[in-house]
């Protein structure tokens, strides 16, 4: 008996309050959106194979990259780890039966689906070509595509993410098992907590910015319209006040996954637990102070640039701390190289590059040359795809046995991890050079001397596509044919591993009592000895 088999029928899924079922619903839906976004990315890369805009007209290309951005950011990256893995495992990790607000959790999924369907509807009925940043006055007065419906979709998706974040914060504060103190929480919980703070405090500002854009488009109010005395830069302030922290909303949960896998597969506690935990919170707090570094060349005051650039340097430090702490977690460990660990290594390398190139853009001087070029495209794909997506895949493989009760096939998944890593570097590394050379982003046509690097990039994207298709195939296969996993195949310490796979609807037969630190492998060995003794 487990949460999957307890109740049958479609309705038992659609009306469920169980966080694990909602997480499963989320997993299916975000995978769907990921592949739509991925298909759009494929179209972009195909178009850029040649310097002319010959595969698509420029306006089609603009719609394609806009929808790629909107779908990937609002319907994949933001909910990816929190709404699936976080939803599934945070209650289990803290020893709770469910999230504090199961109905709100389900509502969050419905909102997500409503927003997603509206987004797809928009795409089918002509799309939108403002770029995912909705820059005013372009979005308010100069395009005649479906800005309004897209705006509504993003607005609703925002509420879905607010509800997820709110639910996590309440759960982590109020639902911990006896003995589960803050500094015994797994780092995955810490980083999701930090991301949730950003969701709750940042998203409403995006909501109001979108409301004002919608009012400006429909009624014609003048808050952002320069001809009426409004200020288009104000929109950017409001938009980036959310959308910069949103980057941390996307990456922080991924960092949490890495903390779990790196510890589990080196069988060693995370080096400097407190520093890693606090660096998550530091990223969340400092994340709110740096938004205007997206606007250095857009005519904000030079002095503002100075302050925002300085604060950006400060927010880079916690990420560096994390990287080094993870590296030293390996020191004197006992390392094995299962698929999650391979993705983890991939994450560490690619995120280091992504993070360091972020410093290039946070430094006001070099930002002038590099911003709005392919350098920035490469940078955030290194962080988002190389970082976040690698972490997501690491997490999916790591917890797959717990979620489904079956192992994924090890050999082919290691191959997939390798293919993804190679394909990724082929795709996005040339874009750093393109950006340095000055190729602007969002160009359907480009000067011919940039072609060779674009060809490399497109070739890499093909490999990358294979790397993403493989897991879908073998993970689906493993649902039926995979080996039975057992309760704790990785010998990991988290509470989620101390219960059956797949878990019961109420997670634990009785509420566990936490009497050891997180990542306490000695405690785990003691448990095993006890078990052996009792059996013997």
């Amino acid at each position, binding site marked *: 008996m487990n949460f999957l088999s307890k109740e049958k029928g479609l309705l038992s899924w659609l009306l469920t309050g169980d966080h694990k079922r909602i997480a499963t619903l989320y997993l299916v839906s975000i995978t769907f959106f990921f592949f739509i976004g991925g298909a759009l990315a494929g179209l972009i890369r195909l178009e850029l194979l040649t310097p002319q805009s010959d595969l698509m007209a420029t306006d089609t290309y603009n719609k394609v990259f806009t929808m790629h951005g909107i779908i990937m950011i609002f319907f994949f990256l933001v909910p990816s780890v929190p709404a699936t893995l976080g939803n599934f495992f945070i209650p289990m990790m803290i020893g*709770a*039966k*469910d999230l*504090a*607000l*199961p109905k*709100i959790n389900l509502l969050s999924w419905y909102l997500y689906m409503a927003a997603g369907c509206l987004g797809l509807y928009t795409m089918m009925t002509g799309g939108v070509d403002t770029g995912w940043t909705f820059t005013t006055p372009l979005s308010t007065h100069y395009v005649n595509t479906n800005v309004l419906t897209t705006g509504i979709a993003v607005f609703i998706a925002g509420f879905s993410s*607010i509800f997820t974040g*709110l*639910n996590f*914060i*309440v*759960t982590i*504060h*109020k*639902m911990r098992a*006896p*003995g589960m*103190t803050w500094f015994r929480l797994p780092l995955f919980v810490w980083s999701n907590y930090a991301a949730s703070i950003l969701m*709750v*405090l*940042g*998203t*409403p*500002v995006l*909501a*109001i*910015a979108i*409301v*004002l854009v919608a*009012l400006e488009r429909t*009624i*014609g*109010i*003048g*808050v952002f319209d320069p001809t*009426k*005395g*409004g*200020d288009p830069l*104000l929109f950017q*302030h*409001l938009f980036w*006040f959310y959308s910069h922290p949103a980057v941390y909303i996307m990456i922080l949960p991924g960092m949490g996954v890495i903390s779990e896998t790196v510890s589990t597969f080196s069988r060693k506690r995370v080096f400097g637990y407190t520093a890693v935990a606090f660096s998550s919170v530091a990223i969340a707090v400092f994340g709110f102070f740096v938004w205007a570094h997206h606007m250095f060349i857009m005519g904000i005051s030079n002095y503002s640039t100075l302050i925002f650039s300085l604060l950006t340097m400060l927010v880079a430090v916690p990420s560096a701390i994390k990287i080094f702490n993870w590296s030293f977690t390996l020191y004197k460990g006992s390392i094995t190289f299962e698929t999650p660990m391979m993705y983890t290594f991939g994450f560490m390398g690619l995120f280091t590059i992504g993070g360091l190139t972020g410093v290039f853009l946070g430094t006001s001087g070099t930002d002038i040359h590099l911003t709005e070029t392919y350098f920035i495209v490469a940078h955030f794909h290194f962080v988002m795809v190389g970082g976040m997506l690698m972490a997501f895949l690491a997490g999916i493989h790591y917890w797959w046995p717990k979620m489904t009760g079956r192992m994924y096939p090890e050999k082919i998944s290691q191959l997939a991890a390798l293919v993804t890593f190679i394909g990724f570097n082929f795709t996005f590394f040339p874009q750093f050079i393109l950006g340095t050379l000055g190729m602007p982003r969002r160009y359907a046509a480009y000067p011919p001397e940039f072609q060779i690097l674009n060809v490399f990039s497109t070739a890499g994207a093909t490999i990358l596509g294979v790397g993403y298709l493989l897991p879908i195939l073998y993970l689906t296969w493993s649902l039926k044919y995979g080996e039975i996993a057992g309760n704790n195949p990785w010998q990991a310490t988290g509470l989620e591993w101390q219960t059956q796979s797949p878990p019961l609807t*109420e997670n634990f037969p009785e*509420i566990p*009592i*936490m*009497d050891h630190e997180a990542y306490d492998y000695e405690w785990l060995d003691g448990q095993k000895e006890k078990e052996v003794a009792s059996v013997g």
Partner: protein
Amino acid sequence: MSDSQVQVLAETAEAHEHVHPPYQRHHFETYAQQNDATNFAMWLFLLTEIMFFGGLFTAYLIFRNWYYPAFVSGSHQLNIPLGGLNTLLLITSSFTMAMGVWCAELRKKGALVLCLTLTFVLGMGFLMVKTFEYKEKIEKHHVPGFHYSLQSFLAPETDEAAMAAHDKPLPVDMARHTEVYFSLYFAMTGMHALHMIIGVSILAFMIVRAQAGAYTTGHVTYVENFGLYWHFVDIVWIFLFPLLYLISRH
């Protein structure tokens, strides 16, 4: 944490197992935990509301600094007695709401229904007054984007409200910026009114439920949390009233 402490915690968890009211949801250990969690969730939701209105307040402060004379003349078009009346209505409704929570806590069903109904009536009153004010703006063509008219600002002698405030005619460029003022006026009061409409709708639903005795069985969380929402909407108005109506009046 030592073993003995763990023991204690386990015991407290056990000690509270016997309290098991019907409205406690299965995944909570105690009703207090459930109440605490939902209350905290409501506060977090109010945080998002603070930030939502925060964007509007930011815009207001920027443009007030840029177009001060336009904001002064714009605010002279607002009706202080009506705004003041609305403030009274909302503050009183906040009071009746707080009393409602008190009634629910003491399980006084009749009084609770009365309090909620009063709150509902006061909220509807607010919305009616607001509608009246909006009607005035529409008649004077002060709605941005809809044939916006500069008449009251270029020729204040033709406008009663401007005359009463002894307005001098604004230069054309500044008069045009009154549209920004009214954009913000409608965005801010509109968003506030939207929250009021949502609140009043929930109130109507709650009155029916309260009559059925839903909130007077010891399970006051719902009333309490709605109260928080209602008070928050009141607080937003407490700031909107001076910012939009008053501070440029003298």
